[in-house]
């Protein structure tokens, strides 16, 4: 018995020594992580993200090393990520656009679930309720990062030229503005039916729905799309706006076309996120103002949606998982969010606005603070990308009189 006890103790000693050595090796081994993103190079966030990664690597020298990869072609990176996910081999960490195609991979085991990690202090770093927007069935397989609060942009040079001194607050004021602007030889709104999602017109539609149905207008959209009168009423308003008060190239127009109309000073009102501010020169920024969509039933509803997410490849290696979490916690600190906000971005993380922010950045922050609620993009709520694509198709038909607003809604319902 004594011999057996000694043998057992020796075996235990050898095993513990072996495991201790192993764990020491694994803890000593530097974890290499690749972070694939379009926030590199000449992207407005590029220098700040590079700085954060550099600081992190210095602070974790010998333990974790993050390598930044990618180009500033957001669509190209999205395609790359989707291809890698399709092949079952996503990058360690990546930024991704929150499109239905990406959310489709929530069903797979390819993405790391942060739900448990966010229950602690880390979750508190994010603005209230925002993490819920990237949580599906209790799984948070991506983090909200860059937010897209989308106000209406008014070219006050055009409005002032027709005798309007403040942004319209009611629909009557809005239609009056459209009439005056059109008579003066401008176009009232920048719209489009082309691209994969008819981006600008889809944003206008979202704003109209928010103003008619409030922040919760899309809460049950997948079930009540074909029956809720809000969507038909919104379609009627959008149809009038596009048929009478926009550029003649609207059908089939893509985002660069609609952008150029606003940037070129041809259109009075435009909808886009804060990331586009840098495209306006200082003079235009000075005469641009942000506003809410005019009140129909609900006042001051702002489109607020996740613009880009952070996600990571699922891994069975605990050291790698811990390293990923460590990096993402660091990346989403208030201090680093403030740094990235230098690029004009609005983030899902809580932070104090910079004192030296531009006029428009402060203007936007004011709208965010005043907003009575946020409504997500229609395209993020309605379903898969074939349903989203149907929006532009049906809108083109409605503008040309081939569909009524009711039929517009019904045609989209047929694809759902």
């Amino acid at each position, binding site marked *: 018995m004594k011999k057996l006890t000694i043998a057992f103790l020796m075996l235990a000693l050898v095993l513990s020594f072996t495991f201790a050595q192993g764990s020491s090796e694994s803890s000593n081994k530097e974890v290499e992580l690749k972070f694939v993103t379009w926030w590199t190079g000449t992207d407005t966030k590029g220098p700040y993200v590079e700085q954060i990664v550099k600081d992190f690597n210095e602070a974790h020298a010998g333990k974790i090393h993050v390598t930044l990869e990618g180009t500033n072609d957001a669509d190209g990176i999205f395609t790359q990520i989707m291809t890698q996910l399709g092949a079952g081999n996503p990058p360690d960490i990546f930024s991704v656009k929150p499109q239905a*195609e990406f959310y489709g*991979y929530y*069903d797979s085991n390819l993405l790391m679930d942060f739900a448990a990690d966010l229950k602690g202090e880390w979750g508190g770093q994010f603005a209230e309720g925002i993490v819920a927007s990237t949580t599906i069935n209790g799984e948070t397989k991506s983090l909200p990062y860059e937010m897209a609060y989308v106000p209406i942009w008014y070219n006050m040079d055009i409005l002032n030229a027709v005798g309007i001194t403040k942004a319209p607050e009611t629909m009557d004021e809005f239609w009056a503005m459209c009439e005056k602007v059109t008579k003066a030889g401008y176009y009232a709104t920048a719209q489009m039916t*082309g*691209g994969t999602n008819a981006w600008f017109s889809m944003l206008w539609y979202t704003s109209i729905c928010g103003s008619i149905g409030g922040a919760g207008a899309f809460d049950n959209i997948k079930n009540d799309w074909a029956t809720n009168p809000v969507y038909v009423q919104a379609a009627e308003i959008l149809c009038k706006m596009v048929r009478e008060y926009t550029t003649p190239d609207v059908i089939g127009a893509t985002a660069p076309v609609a952008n150029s109309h606003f940037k070129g000073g041809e259109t009075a009102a435009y909808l886009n996120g804060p990331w586009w501010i840098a495209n306006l020169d200082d003079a235009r920024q000075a005469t641009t103002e942000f506003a809410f969509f005019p009140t129909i039933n609900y006042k001051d509803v702002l489109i607020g949606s996740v613009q880009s997410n952070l996600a990571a490849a699922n891994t069975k290696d605990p050291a790698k998982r811990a390293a990923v979490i460590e990096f993402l916690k660091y990346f989403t600190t208030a201090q680093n969010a403030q740094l990235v906000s230098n690029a004009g971005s609005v983030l899902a993380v809580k932070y104090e606005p910079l004192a030296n922010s531009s006029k428009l950045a402060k203007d936007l922050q004011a709208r965010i603070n005043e907003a009575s609620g946020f409504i997500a993009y229609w395209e993020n709520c309605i379903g898969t990308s074939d349903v989203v694509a149907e929006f532009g*198709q049906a809108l*083109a038909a409605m503008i040309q009189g*081939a569909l009524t607003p009711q039929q517009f809604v019904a045609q989209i319902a047929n694809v759902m």
Partner: protein
Amino acid sequence: MSRNLAERKFNRNWKGILLFLLPAFVLYGLFFIYPIFTVIFTSLTDWSNFRTMHFAGFKNYSNLFKNPTFLKAIRNNFIWAFVLAFVQVPIAMTMALVLARKPKGWKLFRTVYFLPTVISGSALAMMWKAVYNPTNGVLNAILGIFSANNGTNWLGDMNTALVAVIVQQVFYFGYFMVIIFASRLGIDDTMYEAAMIDGANVWQQEIHVTLPMLKPVLITAITLAMAYGFRHFESTYLLTGGGPNHVTETMGTFLYTKLSSAKWAEGNSIGTTIILLGGIMISVIRSVLSREK
């Protein structure tokens, strides 16, 4: 070689012959047979996203053929196939026959007509978007000279979009022209000399000498054009995305939309339909054209 001799040779060398055929057979099986069977098999399931697939019979097909957008797409593919086969190929043939007479500058024209074939489709699409632009487009500017500019949005108007997309494609006949031209140059000049001695003019020479001699290559060109028409995707996707309201939709763009939505089974049922319809149509046309008088 007589059949007996061939059989004897095969019996003597069958191992070597099979060994040489094996790589091609494996690659063909791996990259053609296997994907086709996978597409056909999965089209009979409810596969989408990462959900487990279940057998669904012909449900995808019955839904597909009830879908008005898909029916529009089939109609458009037939239009594409027939326009390319019976408008583009004849234009290519006419140009090839003219150039084969070697008029002044024929080498330059041959290069000019072929050049678009090697230019990126995306670049060409951007150019045509500029041509068709309702406000700044070249087409409306030219019509303006004749006071006929109504500000038509050629790619956006539901009445003009399909014609606009097809017309721009018809211009790119250079590929077929080169094939037919090469075949035309292969016709022995003595046949034309004999025809001339018999009193045939140029027109009669082309009708009675050139066309019969070019028949095999014309059948090939028509087959290729129809195949392209049935799987057409690129310029429609780039110019209109299948819009407005699906008037330019093709089976290819519709398939792309479904696959982009991770609706794999629906997408694969469209893919299978393209293969079947295209195969049947091309076989019928080939059999009609190949029929001897």
